[in-house]
């Protein structure tokens, strides 16, 4: 419900939401000018967890930057791994064995489900529902255990290598993944949809709240579930296919309403699509090496390179400029939530505080990724 803000701005006050606030899930600060409980102006203030990864990249070799990528979006770290591997492979012209690409897709999609599960949990926490958090964490824990088995870490993975992956997957992983998909499919309708999605309180709380138009998405460069919730059929995996995604049959869920509920539904459907991709990838998984022959020191040719991947939050782009040296000359990370958050000020204007927080939750912010 958006009510026009009264013109009497002389009685407004400034509310500092953050940098430590339960709803910002990190160190984001939003400077809110409020008129009672209505927001007159919202101004995100960034940079509280800025680590200058772009300078770090210039100071390290291509391979040395790989662990850093996982520390940006710690929820979908493997997609950041993947993006960095892809852009360097593009620049250096490395061919990746097919099995490695399949493994990449499987792990990235598993990680995407984990990311969406955590988003779901945190979103419900923003809305005051605590129990779903634990149910989602129960499922997410299974994914993390699976990924720990093959990558060696639980959250900040450093799994991709230029020309392949660090470690081959084994039968136990394949079986565990299949079991997990079966389990999540079994739990989804009751614990996720009956308990939460169809709940009248939740529907009333997020339906028609925080409407983002397709045009707004384009002007602000919003991608991922935010754009897809506004009726834009844009998914890097379909639109600008990379890796072995063209070989899989999956749909891009698109909802036209543009409200928080639409973004919620997009993510819920995406989990199902990710499961479909994983199942197909496991069925088709080819035999072969998981690592190509790659020189120890990479020196890609001078030039401008761009590569995009679809992370759980939207399109992640790496703009890489090389000058033929063994470290990147310039790396710009186009992080999806940076652009997604930039429309927050415009959309939150005139909303109630609680609705604005529901909107913020539905944008799925990961602060280290915004600040990089």
């Amino acid at each position, binding site marked *: 419900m958006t009510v026009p803000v009264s013109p009497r701005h002389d009685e407004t006050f400034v509310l500092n939401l953050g940098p430590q606030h339960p709803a910002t899930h990190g160190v984001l600060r939003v400077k809110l000018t409020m008129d009672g409980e209505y927001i007159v102006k919202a101004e995100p203030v960034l*940079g509280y967890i800025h680590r*200058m990864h772009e300078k770090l990249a210039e100071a390290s070799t291509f391979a040395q930057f790989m662990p850093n990528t996982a520390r940006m979006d710690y929820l979908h770290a493997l997609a950041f791994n993947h993006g960095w591997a892809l852009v360097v492979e*593009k620049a250096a012209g490395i061919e990746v064995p097919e099995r490695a690409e399949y493994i990449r897709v499987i792990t990235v999609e598993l990680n995407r489900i984990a990311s969406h599960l955590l988003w779901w949990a945190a979103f419900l926490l923003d809305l005051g529902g605590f129990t779903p958090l634990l149910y989602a964490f129960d499922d997410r824990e299974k994914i993390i255990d699976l990924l720990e088995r093959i990558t060696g870490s639980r959250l900040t993975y450093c799994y991709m290598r230029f020309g392949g992956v660090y470690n081959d997957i084994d039968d136990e992983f394949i079986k565990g993944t299949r079991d997990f998909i079966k389990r999540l499919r079994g739990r989804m309708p009751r614990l996720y949809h009956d308990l939460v999605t169809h709940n009248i309180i939740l529907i009333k709380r997020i339906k028609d709240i925080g409407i983002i138009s397709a045009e707004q998405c384009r002007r602000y460069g919003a991608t991922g579930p935010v754009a897809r919730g506004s009726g834009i059929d844009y998914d890097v995996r379909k639109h600008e296919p990379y890796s072995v995604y063209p070989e899989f049959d999956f749909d891009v869920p698109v909802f036209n309403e543009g409200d928080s509920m639409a973004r919620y539904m997009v993510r819920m459907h995406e989990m199902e699509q990710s499961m479909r991709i994983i199942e197909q990838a496991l069925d088709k998984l080819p035999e072969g090496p998981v690592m190509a022959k790659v020189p120890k020191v990479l020196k890609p*040719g*001078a*030039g401008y390179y*761009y590569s995009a991947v679809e992370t759980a939050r939207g399109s992640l782009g790496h*703009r890489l400029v090389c000058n*033929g040296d063994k470290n990147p000359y310039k790396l710009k990370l186009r992080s999806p939530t940076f652009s997604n958050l*930039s429309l927050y000020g415009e959309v939150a204007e005139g909303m109630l505080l609680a609705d604005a927080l529901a909107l913020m939750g539905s944008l799925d912010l990961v602060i280290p990724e915004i600040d990089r």
Partner: protein
Amino acid sequence: MVVVEQTRVALGTLFPDSHPTAVSSEEDNQGTAPREVGILVTDPAKHGHHIDVLCRPDQVVAVARIMDGEGYFLESISGVDWPDRQQFEIIYDYNRLGGEHCRVMVRTLMDRNQPVVPTITEVFPAADWHERETFDFYGIHFQDHPNLIRILLPEDADFYPLRKDYMP
């Protein structure tokens, strides 16, 4: 390739002198060396972008308007420092939301000692934060930007960390 061709023609109005030609992927690798202002069609499989536009700083807004008219969105703005040429470069990446894929890289070069470029926030509000970030890291001044203050670094920082001569 319809969209690529359309975009190329639309952008061609800005560069009446240059004759855009599609280059084969062998000659394509022209590196980062400076070249003539104009349009270059590149191999997306190799570079990730379909069109490479080099324009003068005063043409940036005109390019943005054309891209806006063609239905593109602004993906990112990145600065590059070329101390040996005494130049700054700004790269604008445009992409399309859905439909046929076409990424356009728009570059502009300016003097390193007087880094000024007009803002495109009027056309794309997305540029607001990206330009602030570029200002933050390189000290490139975006003319007429509504709120050109530091975004990721502290307000009182007096350095531009991504300049190549910056040493922490």
